[in-house]
Structure formats: C-alpha cells, structure tokens
C-alpha cells in the first residue's frame, strides 16, 4: 500500500523531471527566472510601475525580431536585439516624460503598442506562424542547454546588481526627496533598475515569450503583498511563489497536455487569487470576517 502511494507520488511529482531532459531544463530555467525576476517585480509593484513591466516586455519583441531576421533562431542575436530594444524604449519613455508634459506611463503605452505591432510584422516577414507563437508565448519546453545557461547567468547578474543598488533603490521608493537631498545616486540607480527589468524580461522572453514574460515577475510579487509588511520577507515570498508556480505549472502542463508557459502563469494566477481571498495583509476574507478589535 505504502509503496503504491509513494510510487504514485513519484510518478506525479518527480518522474516527469527524472525521465525527461526537456522537463529538467524547463524546471531549472523557471527556477532561475523566479529567483531573478520576482524581486524586481516587488520593486515595480511598490513603485506603482506594475504595468510598466508589461510595456517593456513588448518593447523587447522588435529587437529580438531584428536579431531573428539577421541571424535566424540564434540565441545571442535575439537576446542582444531584445536587450537593446528594451533599454532604448525604457530610456526613451523616461526622456520623453522628463522633456514633455506626457507622463511616463502614457509614453510607455504608446511605445508598447508600436513595439508589438513592429515586432509581429518583422517576425511574420520571415518566420512561420509557429515562430510567431514562440515569440509571443515562448517555448519553455524547447529550451536548449545554452538558453538555460543564459537565463541562469542573467538571474545571477540580476541578483548581484540588485544587492549593489539595494539601499538607494529602497530609499528612492519610500522617500525620493530624501535620496535627492543626500546623494546623487538617484538617476543612475533608476537607470540600473530599468536595466534590471529589461535584463530579466529578455531572460523570461526565451521561456515565456513577449506576452507572458512579465508573468513570473509581477504575479508572485503582487501575491506576496498579501502576506507581509516587510520588504525582505516580501521578496522571499515572491521568489517562493515564483518557484512554486514554475514547478506546479510544469507538472500541470505535463500531466494534462496543456501549453507549458500559460500553465506556469495560470498557477501563479491561482496563487494570486487565493491570496486575494485569504491573504493575512488586507485579504478579502480577513476584511469580511474581521476578528474582534484589540485593546491597544
């Protein structure tokens, strides 16, 4: 009996990864993505820039598409193109916000629509519909070893750079006026942060495509907001949520024959909905069924 149970558990939770290389690679890639992207997502959320990640994810597409046109499905050409395009759009949107009356979110909205259209047009000029699908939704089960290494490298650099700019970044979020009054690091730190966003989106683009790459960045971060009031703990929760989403999402996809990328994001979405309902910090149930108030 006991062995049958443990065999079943093994078949359900471990065998897919033990038996198939592509599942292992997908798992490693999503774990690395969660480690790198979730902390960035927490800062995006806290700075009320949650939708900006989405806009920048779209901006990666035309750059990757140019790389594809030039060199075909070459990992480094596409990555480089995506990085350049993402950074250019991020900086341009900021520059336009500073030099005109347009707010940054408005110029980003303009950029992301143009980027998406341009990217799809470029890909369709040379690629098939399958290529286009991969550009839009990624191909997490088809990652090569080199791609997984690239994602892991980006994740490592991202964590290192985040540690480097941690103090001024936190300060710029909570009290930008104070940071400006004590130091000139505000602008470089902001640019480094935007670079981190782009870097992680380019990594996620390989696995989840333009349209879903921001999912592992934002959903776990937003979910974590419902469980803690401390930023360090929030980041740990976000990373944990991202890791869990990647693992459960891949299992969901494997056992039910669903597309892998969307499955991962759906699990992250389910965790989010569960937290909206039952989260200990501002969750719906906590508000609907309040505990008796305290003495002091």
């Amino acid at each position, binding site marked *: 009996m006991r062995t049958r149970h443990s065999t079943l558990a093994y078949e359900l939770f471990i065998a897919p990864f033990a038996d198939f290389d592509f599942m292992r690679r997908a798992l490693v890639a999503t774990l690395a993505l969660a480690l790198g992207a979730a902390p960035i997502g927490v800062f995006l959320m806290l700075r009320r820039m949650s939708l900006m990640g989405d806009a920048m994810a779209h901006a990666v597409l035309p750059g990757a598409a140019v790389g594809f046109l030039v060199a075909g499905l070459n990992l480094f050409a596409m990555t480089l193109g995506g990085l350049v395009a993402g950074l250019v759009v991020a900086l341009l949107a900021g520059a336009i916000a500073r030099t005109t009356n347009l707010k940054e979110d408005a110029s980003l909205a303009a950029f992301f629509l143009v980027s998406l259209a341009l990217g799809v047009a470029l890909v369709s000029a040379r690629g098939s519909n399958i290529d286009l699908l991969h550009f839009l939704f990624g191909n997490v089960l088809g990652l090569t070893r080199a791609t997984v290494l690239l994602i892991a490298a980006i994740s490592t650099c991202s964590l290192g750079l985040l540690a480097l700019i941690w*103090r001024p970044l936190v300060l710029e*979020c909570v009290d930008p006026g104070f940071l400006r009054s004590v130091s000139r690091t505000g602008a470089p730190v902001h640019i480094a942060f935007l670079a981190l966003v782009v870097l992680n989106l380019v990594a996620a683009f390989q696995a989840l495509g333009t349209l879903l790459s921001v999912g592992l960045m934002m959903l776990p971060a937003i979910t974590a907001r419902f469980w803690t009031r*401390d930023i360090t703990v929030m980041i740990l929760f976000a990373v944990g949520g991202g890791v869990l989403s990647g693992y459960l999402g891949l299992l969901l996809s494997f056992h039910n024959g669903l597309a892998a990328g969307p499955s991962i994001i759906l699990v992250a979405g389910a965790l989010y909905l569960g937290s909206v309902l039952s989260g200990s910090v501002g969750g719906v149930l906590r508000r609907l069924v309040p505990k008796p108030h305290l003495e002091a």
Partner: protein
Amino acid sequence: MTTQLRFRNLTLGYDRHPAVHHLDGAVEAGALVAVVGPNGAGKSTLFKGIIGLITPLAGRVELNGLKRHEIAYLPQVADIDRSFPIGVYDMVAMGLWHATGLFGGINAKARRRIHEAIAAVGLTGFEDRPIETLSGGQMQRVLFARLLLQDARLIVLDEPFNAVDAKTITDLCALVQRWHGEQRTVLAALHDLDLVRANFPQALLLARTPVAWGATRDVLTPENLLRARQMCEAFDTRAEACRADAA
C-alpha cells in the same frame, strides 16, 4: 557672526514663472529663522533652491562652503510613500546615509545612535512598526529622528508641524531649540504665527518677493501680513518677461 547662507538676486521658479522673485539677503551661522507666508508664497521653492533640487532662473544661493551632506532637508510629508513596507528603525537609520553610503555596515555604535535618536523623539518601542501603521505625528517624529542622525550644519524644515498635535509640536520644537543651542543653522517654513513668535528669533515673510525680513516681532506686523496676502498668487499665464534685470 559668519554668514552661513546668502541669496544674491535669487529668482526660483518653474517654467520661467517665478515662485521666488529677486531675493537678496543673508542668514547667519547658527540663526533660527522662520519662513512665513501664504500658500504659494514660494517657501517650499526657496528651500528646494537652497538644497539644490532646482536650479535658479536667475541669481544664486551661496552656501559658504557647506557640503551637500552638511545640509539636512525635511520635505513635506506628501513626498513620502507611506504604504512602503519598511519599519521605523530602517527609516531612521537612513539618516546615517553619509556615514554608511551604499554598502557600509551599521556597527554597534551606529545602532546605539539610532536607538538614541528614536528615544529622543519619544518613539522607543516603535522600532519594528511598519511606517504605514504610524499616525501623522508619529511619522513626523520618525523624520525628526532621521534628521538628528544626519548631524547637519544647516537644517531646512518644510512645514514640519502640519497636521501635528500640540504635544508633538512641543516635543519637536524642543529638538529645534536643541539644534539652535548647538549652533546649527535652522530654517523652517511655518504657518502658526504664535508658534513662530514663541520659538523663532528671526523671520522671513515671503510673498514671492520678500515682504519683510529680520527680528520676528518687527516682521510679523498686521500691515506686513496684509501686504503679503495681497501680493501672493500672481501667477499669470500671459506674464511678460521680467525687466527688473534690464532696468
């Protein structure tokens, strides 16, 4: 007496519209000056000009060799994201920015200073409280604790007592007096004239242009205050270029 701060024909503003217009004058080292004036008189703008957040449209501010880290600035509370998940201790510890920089550790001595600053503003026991759970007055105490750690020669307070109860004002005013006693130069924008008369030896009455500047009792006269009210809020989208410099 040495001069800590000198304004030379200083004009500050936004989009060429002056918010502070042709200000001349000096603040002595160790002075305690209240900056008074109606809303829109240019108090906040003047402060931003002093600490270098905005560049003058004309003229200049001379800081007499003060370095950036020797100036502490308390902005209006509205600039702070109160929902950010950070605790009182960390918020106060930011005052050590100059000493620690990006990576410097916070050693036992620094920790003691942080606890002393928190105690000085009466918030002992609040160290771990998230700032979003603080009342307005408690938040202001946190910011004063941070100012204490900055150990600055020039302290600029932008409406520090807005929406703060009498007890908190009394406690925080005592800190301002302590800074005054330590020969630090303090500028504070204030609306409560009785408070200014009781605590600030000098006052600058501002209504875009300076109306009066000097000993508080000479500045805060009914005539001056009336003039200040009438002079303010003259923003005009069709205003012509100022000719004072040409004349």
